[in-house]
């Protein structure tokens, strides 16, 4: 379970997160929605400790992330798979070596037979030909890079998956493929997921619950039905941007 309480982060004079309260229960997929530039990715990075929160508490699996040493934090991170917005693949090594770095068990990391087998499994899970393992990131399309990024994130069999804008920059067909993968990972790997996105339609496809981040705070979290029934003007405005004035009929 991930529990965030009063998380605050400021960059210079700008308060990006201003007391965010946010829970993710085991086994569920929560979509963190919000317009661009509202700090969704910052929130995701504070959960894994890539950005240090100025204030507040973030508890992952019962461990307070904000006070851990680098070594302790590394142990927590090994239970979390992070899918970066543009893949963030290491471009000087092959896809196989990229996926290998995702294998967090050191004994298995050294076992080349296991590494090849696991890379094949992960690539198949994200609907990629296992032969892609031999290629370098520069030889892949944008959608393939994202899928290799997902394969790397799941290679260590994480309990949690954090998805940072998984469909941004993709055409609708590839976006649908990635949305389907989010569902598939949660179903087949039994992971707990936090998906950051500004794509409302995609969020409605994959989420068990939604949370809307605006002006540094979560202004609403709940089920899709609760969102569609909400009278909050910010929620209405955000939904109608993607669904039009008939947002209530989408469900």
């Amino acid at each position, binding site marked *: 379970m991930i529990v965030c309480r009063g998380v605050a982060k400021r960059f210079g004079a700008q308060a990006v997160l201003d007391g965010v309260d946010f829970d993710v229960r085991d086994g569920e997929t929560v979509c963190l929605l919000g317009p661009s530039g509202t700090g969704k990715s910052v929130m995701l990075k504070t959960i894994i400790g890539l950005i240090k929160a100025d204030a507040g508490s973030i508890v992952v699996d019962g461990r307070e992330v904000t006070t851990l040493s*680098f070594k302790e934090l590394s142990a927590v991170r090994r239970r979390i798979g992070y899918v970066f*917005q543009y893949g963030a693949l290491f471009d000087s090594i092959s896809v196989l070596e990229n996926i290998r770095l995702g294998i967090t068990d050191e004994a298995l990391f050294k076992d080349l037979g296991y590494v090849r087998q696991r890379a094949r499994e992960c690539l198949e899970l994200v609907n990629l030909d296992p032969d892609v393992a031999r290629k370098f990131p520069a030889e892949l399309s944008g959608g393939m890079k994202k899928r290799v990024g997902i394969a*790397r994130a799941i290679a260590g069999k994480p309990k949690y998956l954090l998805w940072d804008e998984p469909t941004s920059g993709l055409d609708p067909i590839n976006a649908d493929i990635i949305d389907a993968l989010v569902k598939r990972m949660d179903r087949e790997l039994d992971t707990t997921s936090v998906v950051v996105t500004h794509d409302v339609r995609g969020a409605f496809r994959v989420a068990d619950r939604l949370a809307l981040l605006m002006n540094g705070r979560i202004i609403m979290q709940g089920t899709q039905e609760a969102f569609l029934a909400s009278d909050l003007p910010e929620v209405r405005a955000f939904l109608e941007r993607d669904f039009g004035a008939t947002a209530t009929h989408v469900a």
Partner: protein
Amino acid sequence: MTAPTLDIRRIAGRASITSATHAGRFARFLAMSAKGLAEPRIWVPRAWEEAYRVGIGSLGIVLLISAFAGAVTALQAGYQFTGSIPYYVVGTLIVSSIVLELGPVLTALVLAGRVGARYAAELGTMRVTEQIDALESLGRAPSSHLVVPRVLAGLVVIPALTMVANAVGILAGWASVRLVLPVSDIDFVYGAQIYWRPWDAWYSLIKAVAFSLSNTTISCYMGFSTEQGAEGVGRSTTTAVVASSVTILLLDVVLTKLLLST
């Protein structure tokens, strides 16, 4: 009259704060990098790869620069040596100039441009494309994967290249001096040996080690500190080369004072 004074104070204040901030961050970066030494199984293979890449890639330019430095020193000796100075002194002049100063300093400055810029640009690009974040998110220490191999590769290769540069500079100087002055090989070798002290070679090596450490750590630090996309990578790379070059020149003065003062 007060406005310019205020501006100068503001500029000086801002520069002081920036310098102090960088000094603090650099110290923290060095401490973080030192922790990476605890994972030799990660950095040993990468350090070898890096050393090979840096060594082979830089050999050509180092040979060229050192040969020209030796040749120019010899040709200038030909211009300055008139009348009363015995010709064998030219051997002393060339060997001392190359070993004590030109070899280590020119090699370090060239490599600040070549290796330093590469390190800063590579790590800067990795920073802005979230590759360093990705490494951390996988529970791995970026220092042992990215910083320690680069610094140690530089620590091995740059002093080695400096020794090669010294040898090539002396040989090029020897060959060139024969074109401009009536110096026999025996005179040259006599001049080279008469004032030679083994400490000179150690001094050259110590300088090369100090220069390589400053060059690689500053460049890696600048790469790690990169912000704001392609423009940030450009800024980090330029800053890395300038800061490394200035540090090399400062270290040159300090080490000369410390190691050669009688």
